[in-house]
C-alpha cells in the first residue's frame, strides 16, 4: 500500500532507545507472553527423550539425564514473536545443534531441512543452515532456571533469528529431511521461513 491511512490522533509509544534491534511491526515487552494452540503438556522427565531422526528411524536418542550431560551452550539473544512482541537480551542454556550432531557421530547434517516434532503433535520446519553453525539449540534453561512448561519446558528448540513459533516448544525429535515441508502453523497460512527482519509473518509476505 503506497499511502497508509493516518489514524487520526494516534500517537503510540515512541520506540525505545535500541530500536535498531526491533524488527518492523514489532514492539518491546518486558514480560514473557505465552502462545500455544492447545493445553500445555506436562510429560514426566523419566519418560522424556530426545532424538535426531531420519527416514522414520532414530539416528541417536538421549534420555533426560544423558541429554543434560551433553556440552552446554549459553546464549543471550533477542526474540521476536509473530504476534508482534519482541523481548531483548533473553538468556538461554541448552545443547547446540552442532553439539548434538557431534554427539550423534555425524560429521555432516544428514539433510538440508529439518522438522521439529513436539509433544502435543506440534511441528515446525527449519532449514539446517538456520540451526547448524551455532545458530540453533535445544534449550532447557531460561534466565538460569529450568524452562517452565508453559514456555516449552522441559526443552524447546531455540532459533532466535526467526519468528518465535519456529522455536518449537516441548520438542522431542528433530527429523532431517531432503526437502522443505510445512509444519503446523506453516500449513495454516504462516510463512514457510519466518524472518522477522523481512516481516515474513504469513505465506506470501
Amino acid at each position, binding site marked *: 500500500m503506497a499511502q497508509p491511512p493516518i*489514524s487520526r490522533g494516534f500517537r503510540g509509544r515512541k520506540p525505545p532507545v535500541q530500536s535498531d534491534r526491533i524488527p518492523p511491526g514489532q514492539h518491546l515487552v518486558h514480560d514473557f507472553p505465552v502462545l500455544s494452540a492447545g493445553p500445555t503438556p506436562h510429560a514426566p522427565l523419566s519418560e522424556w527423550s530426545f532424538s535426531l531422526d531420519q527416514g522414520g528411524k532414530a539416528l541417536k536418542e538421549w534420555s533426560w539425564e544423558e541429554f543434560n550431560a551433553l556440552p552446554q551452550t549459553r546464549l543471550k539473544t533477542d526474540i521476536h514473536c509473530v504476534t508482534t512482541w519482541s523481548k531483548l537480551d533473553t538468556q538461554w542454556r541448552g545443547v547446540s545443534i552442532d553439539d548434538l550432531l557431534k554427539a550423534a557421530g555425524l560429521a555432516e547434517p544428514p539433510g538440508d531441512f529439518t522438522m521439529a516434532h513436539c509433544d502435543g503433535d506440534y511441528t515446525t520446519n527449519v532449514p539446517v543452515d538456520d540451526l547448524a553453525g551455532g545458530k540453533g539449540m535445544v534449550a532447557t534453561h531460561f534466565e538460569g532456571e529450568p524452562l517452565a512448561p508453559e514456555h516449552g519446558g522441559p526443552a524447546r528448540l531455540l532459533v532466535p533469528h526467526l519468528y518465535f513459533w519456529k522455536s518449537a516448544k516441548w520438542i522431542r525429535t528433530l527429523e532431517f529431511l531432503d526437502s522443505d515441508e510445512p509444519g503446523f502453523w506453516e500449513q495454516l497460512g504462516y510463512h514457510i521461513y519466518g524472518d522477522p527482519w523481512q516481516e515474513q509473518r504469513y505465506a506470501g509476505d
Partner: protein
Amino acid sequence: MIRNGSDSAVPRRLQWQTAEVSGLIDETPRVRSLVLTLPDWPGHKPGQHVDIRLTGEDGYRAQRSYSIASAPESENVMLTVERIEDGEVSPYLSIDVRKGDKFELRGPIGGHFVWTSALQGPLFLIAGGSGVAPLMAMLRHRAAAKNKAPATLLYSSRAFEDIIYRTELERLAAMGDGLKIVHTLTRQQPAGWAGGARRIDRAMLESEGFPPAARPRIFICGPTRLVESASQIMLDLGHEANLIKTERFGPTGG
C-alpha cells in the same frame, strides 16, 4: 457462505487493506466493539483473527492482533477491544476512534482455533473477559446456521457490568436451540446473583461442561492464567488433548 484462503493448497497472500470504522458499540465501561467496512473481505471462519496496523501523523506505526467477533454470515467485520490502561493500541481503539476513521487491516488469520457448524458433537466454550470475542463469532455463526447441537458457554467476568454482549447472549440462550450460558463473576456480584461467584475451577468445568465420553469440542480463550488452568483441568477430567483448542490474549505468564 464461508470462503477461506487457507483452505486452498496455496494460501492467499494476505494484503493490507483499509478498514473504515462504520459503527461503534460501547459494550462495557472498558470494552468497545468496532464495526468495520472492508473493500475486499474474503470471508472468515469463526475463531480467526485479523492484524491491524495504526499509523500516526508522524508515520509511527503499531500492529496488533484482534479476534473477529462477527459471524461469517454478517455483512461487516466486528472487533471487540478491551482497554488495557497502560496499553499502546487498545486505549486508542476503545476510546479515541470515531466513525469514519480508517486504519490498515489484514486477515483472516489462523486456521486452528476455528469452529464451524459442520463439525459434529457438543461445543464447550470457555471464556475470560474479552476472550469471549472469538467464541461469540462461533455462537453467532451457530445461530445463523441453525445448528442445534448442544453448546455451553462458561464465561468469567469481573463484575456484572463487565459482561460483554450480555443482552445478545441472553437472547441467544432464549432461542431454545440447545445453548446454555453460564456466567461467573469473580470480583463483585449484584444482590441476588444466581450465577457463579468465583474463578473458573474444576468443579465448575466438570458440572457445567460435557462428559469426556460425549467428546465435546472445547475452545478456551482469555488471559493466559485462565487458559493454562482451564485447559489443564480439562485434560485431567479426561478430555482428549486434540479436542482442546486454546487462544491466549495476554497478559503474559511468568
